[in-house]
């Protein structure tokens, strides 16, 4: 278990709050589940880095995967039919897609 991956995940989560806020304002309340998951993941990741406790790192990793999943479940219809507005939410999707990789790395390596 390498805590460095969780530090990188934290940096991505912090950046994601900014891109997520922009996306949230464009798409409305349907992003609420994703935004909630992102905030919880941010708090738990902070706790994992602060304590270094294995169990909290596992929970943080799981939440980071959920953040990426909820981004797609909540934005799938928009992705499917809206081409011109994609630059608005593209950065957020690109950021959260890094999280599952880092989550797996933090618990497996």
């Amino acid at each position, binding site marked *: 278990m390498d805590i460095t991956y969780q530090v990188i995940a934290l940096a991505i989560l912090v950046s994601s709050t900014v891109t997520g806020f922009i996306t949230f304002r*464009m*798409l*409305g309340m349907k992003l609420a589940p994703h935004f909630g998951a992102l905030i919880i993941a941010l708090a738990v990741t902070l706790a994992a880095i602060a304590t270094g406790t294995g169990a909290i790192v596992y929970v943080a990793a799981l939440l980071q995967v959920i953040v990426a999943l909820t981004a797609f479940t909540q934005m799938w*219809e*928009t992705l499917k*039919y809206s*081409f*011109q*507005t994609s630059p*608005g939410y593209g950065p957020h999707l690109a950021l959260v897609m890094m999280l599952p990789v880092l989550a797996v790395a933090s618990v497996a390596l």
Partner: protein
Amino acid sequence: MAKTIRAIGIPAPNAGILAGNVLKNPDNPGEEVRFVLSTGAEEGLDAVARKHGYTLEITQTGATIEARMVPSGKNMEEVDVSGDFCPGPVITVGNILAGLPTGERLKVKSTSADTIADVAAAVTSSGSKVVGEGVEGDRHYLIAEKAERQAAGAAAAVDRDRVLIVQGNGIGNAERAYATFIFSKVAQSMGRKVTIFLLMDGVSLAKKGNAAAVKHPAFDRLDRLMAEVVAAGATVYACELSAKFRGIEQADLADGVKLAGAATYLQLLSDPAYAVVNF
């Protein structure tokens, strides 16, 4: 070219006798002859047409009928645009009409009523006329008559009592999607007739169920707002080309939404009765 003879008020069988005399002594043999008659005066005209080697086609327009006598063997040109989608049918029909002499007619058939409506918009926009529409089996059709575009006269006073809202962002931009239907409600409350044209990403709103996913805490869910606007009489068109781009078919459309082509959009834009709002 075709000769048109107005004989309103002449009843049957006198109308038939008149037609027989005209067909017996044509100015230009082989020329098409049209009789504009009162309803009911067409009785017996089919026998007159056959006797002189013509085929009869009847078109009802209000209280009058038009009896078209086409020399047998010379049929009205027909084109079937079934399966083709915007802008294909409009371009096909435009090219054929461009090659026809003034007064000649073209029958356009399609399995899609929306395609025929779009072709009708293109025909009238180009200065020609739609003289008949109907359904034959599984085909919708219209009959277009080639005419020259009239030069614009003195500017006529037009009541600008209609609003065209062009929506190009769809569910990818909640604020613009809400604004489309909130502005529509305002326009309707002001007694304006509202037409909404969804194109590009805007057609995402036309897909059944998509608008239900758009919600802002300060407003009602978007699909409900959309249904209210449609129920209040708004016409909602979805661009056929944009829908095809996104794999949205006729069966996927939300209630009250119709597919329309570029000709309908351009006709709406060029209609001075419409104030145009873009979202």
